[in-house]
């Protein structure tokens, strides 16, 4: 289930959930669970991701009446989860700075020597989300903007800065 595309079944499930059908909402949870967890992992890391997605989905149920267009369920629920991740990642900021920060690599392939999370953790949370939604979900800038609640121009700026930071981390600060 892509975050931004909705088929007929999903639309039907969203409409049933809007009428208070808990099982229909359960089917939506199952359909979106994997992608939401992956997004959360890219923003806050493995440790908190699944708890945050569970919390986000419970919140989504209570706010379902605010979903005006059932076709927008994917971006809408992703935004709820992302906002929770953003809040937690701000609290993590101090913690992360005390954790082992990758040393500039001397290995022949720096990308192999550092884990994806070690690199992501050096970026701002929005930059992590933009990279994730670009590289993993292959969303357009407009779709990413609707998930993150920013403009497409900001999406491009975040991506540019994120890629520059990635190159700096992996290049050992040479750029």
């Amino acid at each position, binding site marked *: 289930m892509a975050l931004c595309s909705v088929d007929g079944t999903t639309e039907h499930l969203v409409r049933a959930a809007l009428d208070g059908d808990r099982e229909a909402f359960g089917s939506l949870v*199952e359909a979106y669970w994997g992608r939401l967890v992956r997004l959360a992992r890219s923003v806050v890391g493995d440790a908190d991701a699944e708890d945050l997605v569970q919390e986000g989905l419970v919140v989504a149920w*209570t706010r379902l009446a605010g979903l005006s267009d059932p076709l927008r369920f994917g971006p809408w629920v992703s935004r709820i989860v992302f906002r929770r991740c953003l809040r937690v990642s701000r609290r993590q900021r101090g913690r992360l700075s005390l954790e082992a920060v990758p040393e500039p690599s001397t290995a022949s392939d720096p990308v192999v020597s550092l884990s994806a999370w070690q690199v992501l953790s050096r970026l701002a949370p929005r930059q992590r989300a933009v990279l994730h939604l670009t590289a993993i979900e292959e969303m357009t800038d407009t779709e990413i903007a609707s998930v993150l609640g920013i403009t497409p121009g900001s999406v491009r700026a975040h991506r540019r800065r994120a890629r520059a930071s990635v190159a700096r981390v*992996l290049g050992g600060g040479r750029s």
Partner: protein
Amino acid sequence: MTPLNDDELVRSFEDQLRRWSRRPPTIPGAVARVRILARLPRASRGVSWLRLAAAAALLFVLVVAAWRGAPRWAGETKAGLEVALAPSTGPDVVVWVLDNRTTVYFAMSRDGSARGGLS
């Protein structure tokens, strides 16, 4: 070995990110579904039946308290009723029953004079 340039580093990292992200969640979707459904509050939208029931119960308690707590004097209502009915009044007479001992009545006439009294 020639060091990778920035674009190659980024491209290589994004490949690594895809592989890292492909790992399945530790909690399967079916299990997450059960856990999340167990945490959902009863009503998803509109009227909260719990709140409505609480408001109805509160209203009931207030009505009962007001009814039971209102000051009463023995025979007041009955006496007042008797007094109110006691004076024989015509169509031009207005009677005010102030309490069970005091009745004020006004009699109006067409020429402007008025008779009245206190009983």
